[in-house]
């Protein structure tokens, strides 16, 4: 009898080992799948985007004649001078063989339309340059930049290219004279949005996101934690609090655009706050993150062992003291985890910002939550929709910046959480 039992066990052993192995393989392949998708996503983003961190510049000998400044370099004449004309003249002098009107207009397009403003700034800062010939590194046009990055194939028939054979010949000539160089694209990190890809930067969107998320945090975190404490520790359980609980759980699953419409109705139409400002964006995102924070905070409070409360009450602490001095610090790590999830979601959100006017072309960098601003996901959306080829790489670069931004915000909260982490 007992022999038989061990026989039965032995017979089933191989099958059970196999089942074990199979289960591990399933788990492992699920993880490999996930990692493969992540690597593909990050890989394509990086391959498409890393070139955006370099920008082509063209060195031109610029002669700032006294006559360009009415013979007298005052602050006013420096501000008013025709820098575009000066750059055009320099290009003509460099390529004296270009005489036809159409060719000339193509020649002028080698240099970015923003170069004149850079030159103006340079001259305003160094007026002693007037009357001399200096070599300036001028921002190249986006077409030139795309060509230098090997994304225009000269083998394609000329009529199907935006950059014509002549332009390519000029670029090659400049290249042979070491007058074309790819430098680190600092403008991408210091400029606001622009319709010229070579001048477009991410700073405006970063600041907009920062202000919006700050407002969200300052509103959603205290309100969410306070609501959770009251519901979990003080409120009596009755139909009314049950109703509130059901509602909060439902709100956590409501699509974000609904919160945007709510924000439009309350903040814009009722309180008459202006459109397109990060303050309103932050308030809308706060509405959206509140349920997440409340739910996770309640769970964290519930996880604090009752012995802590009883001990505190036992030595004479009042209920408020018990919660604020003992329960809350212990629940903090869990609450911060909920906040991370909520804020990360809010950072990547663009739908609710659409209806309150933050999906907009905004050049000036916001200096406060009350200045008009966009957000990073919105900037990615806007660039992805732009026809210019050079925006493709900038879109990917902006995605990288958004990911970094997310990592930074999450890292900060993880640090805070570590600080409060308690084990018992």
């Amino acid at each position, binding site marked *: 009898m007992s022999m038989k039992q061990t026989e039965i066990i032995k017979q089933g052993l191989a099958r059970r080992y196999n089942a074990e192995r199979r289960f591990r393989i399933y788990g492992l392949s699920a993880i490999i799948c996930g990692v493969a998708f992540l690597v593909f996503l990050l890989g394509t983003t990086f391959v498409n985007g890393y070139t955006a961190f370099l920008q082509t510049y063209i060195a031109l000998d610029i002669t700032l004649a006294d006559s360009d400044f009415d013979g007298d370099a005052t602050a006013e004449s420096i501000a008013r001078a025709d820098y575009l004309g000066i750059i055009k003249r320099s290009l003509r002098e460099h390529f004296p063989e270009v005489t036809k009107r159409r060719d000339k*207009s193509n020649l002028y*397009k080698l240099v970015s*339309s*923003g170069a004149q*403003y850079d030159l103006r700034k340079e001259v305003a800062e160094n007026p002693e340059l007037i009357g001399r010939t200096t070599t300036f590194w001028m921002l190249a046009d986006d077409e030139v930049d795309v060509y230098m990055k090997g994304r*225009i*194939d000269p083998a*394609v028939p000329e*009529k*199907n*290219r*935006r950059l014509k054979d002549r332009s390519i010949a000029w670029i090659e000539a400049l290249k042979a004279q070491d007058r074309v160089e790819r430098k680190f694209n600092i403008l991408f990190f210091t400029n606001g949005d*622009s*319709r*010229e890809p070579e001048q477009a930067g991410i700073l405006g969107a970063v600041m907009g996101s920062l202000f919006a998320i*700050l*407002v969200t945090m*300052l*509103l959603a*975190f*205290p309100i969410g934690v306070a609501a959770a404490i009251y519901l979990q520790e003080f409120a009596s359980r009755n139909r009314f609090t049950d109703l509130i609980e059901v509602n909060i759980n439902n709100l956590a699953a409501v699509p974000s655009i609904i919160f945007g419409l709510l924000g439009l109705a309350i903040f*814009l139409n009722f*309180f*008459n*706050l*202006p*459109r*397109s400002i990060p*303050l309103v964006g932050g308030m809308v995102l706060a509405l959206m993150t509140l349920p997440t924070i409340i739910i996770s905070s309640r769970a964290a409070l519930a996880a604090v062992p009752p012995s802590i409360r009883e001990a505190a009450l036992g030595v004479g602490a009042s209920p408020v003291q018990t919660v604020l*001095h003992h329960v*809350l*610090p212990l629940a*903090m790590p869990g609450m911060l985890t909920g906040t991370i999830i909520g804020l990360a979601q809010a950072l990547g959100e663009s739908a609710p910002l659409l209806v309150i*006017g933050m*999906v*907009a*072309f*905004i*050049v*000036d960098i916001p200096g*406060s*939550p*009350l200045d*008009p601003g966009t957000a990073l996901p919105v900037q990615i959306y806007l660039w*992805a*929709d*732009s*026809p*210019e*080829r050079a925006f493709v790489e900038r879109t990917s670069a902006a995605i990288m910046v958004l990911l970094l931004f997310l990592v930074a915000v999450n890292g900060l909260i993880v640090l805070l959480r570590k*600080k*409060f982490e*308690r084990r018992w």
Partner: protein
Amino acid sequence: MDRNDFHAIHIWKVLMHKIAKLALLSSAIAVAGAANAARDYIQIVGSSTVYPFATVVAETFGKTTDFKTPIIESTGSGGGMKLFCAGVGENHPDITNASRRIKPSEFEKCQANGVTDIIEVKVGYDGIVLGNYNQSEQLSITRRDLFLALAKHVPNPDGGESLVPNPYMTWKDVNVELPDVEIEVLGPPPTSGTRDAFAELALEGGCKTFDWVKAMKKADKNAYKAACHSVREDGTYIESGENDNLIVQKLRENPKAFGVFGFSFLDQNSDVIQGSLIDGAAPEFENIADGSYPVSRPLYFYAKKAHVGVVPGIREFLNAFTDEAAWGDEGYLTDKGLIPMPDEERAKFGADARALNPMAM
């Protein structure tokens, strides 16, 4: 409780204090700011087709003047009109862009809400292109064939005067001279102004070539519009969102497919895609400008006269937009794909804009 716990509690208290203070401060700033914020920048809403042009003007305006750069939202022509006509005052936009003229109903709504003096500025033309991958065969098609290929209901192929659900599956079915390729067109959804214009100019243009359908217009205008503007929903016309770039990418991957998008996207991606000839005219700058390319539409923007002098820079912005350096034959807007108006038209609308003459409907 050990020392560490006291430490944590202390940090917690300080943190809580700071958060409470910050929250109070920020809400105070918010209320104060919202109460006395005089808007010192121009706010523009409206068409996504005019957006690429308006943004360039706005950026140049911001760089060359002391005014702040105007804020431009792309809300679509209809959405823009709704916001624009909602009223006068800082909380309402100053300018709306439109890829069609303002409708009488919208004009009346504006008037009812106190937006009485509206300055109408026509800025130029935009062509709508039927394009495909440039390694594929270039299509030359008439508007009549385009209508037969894409309309939901078409005149009975047996010649009878009735509408039947569109039976054509390949371009060759429509017209034996066209290639033997399945009909597959990627285009914008009904919310798009480009779609409206495409339906009105291309499909209705082809629809009208059937005399008995044209006669319907007098008898039953709604039935006529339903017949001429409805796009088929059996999977041959694929709605691809408002993102024209996405359509361009998909065309490269699917050489058999065609796409419907604005001329500026063809202009920027001519190394990948080619435009089809419509009624014998290629979608080229000159053909759109002189009107021989049939699928082109005017672009407008509308400004509130009541805001001039209240919101700084509106008059100067109008001048900047109507400057020859911007919308002229050689202006920087042509680099972005805008088709300029003829000289006389530019002179007329330019003068009206500079004099702030309100429009009449």
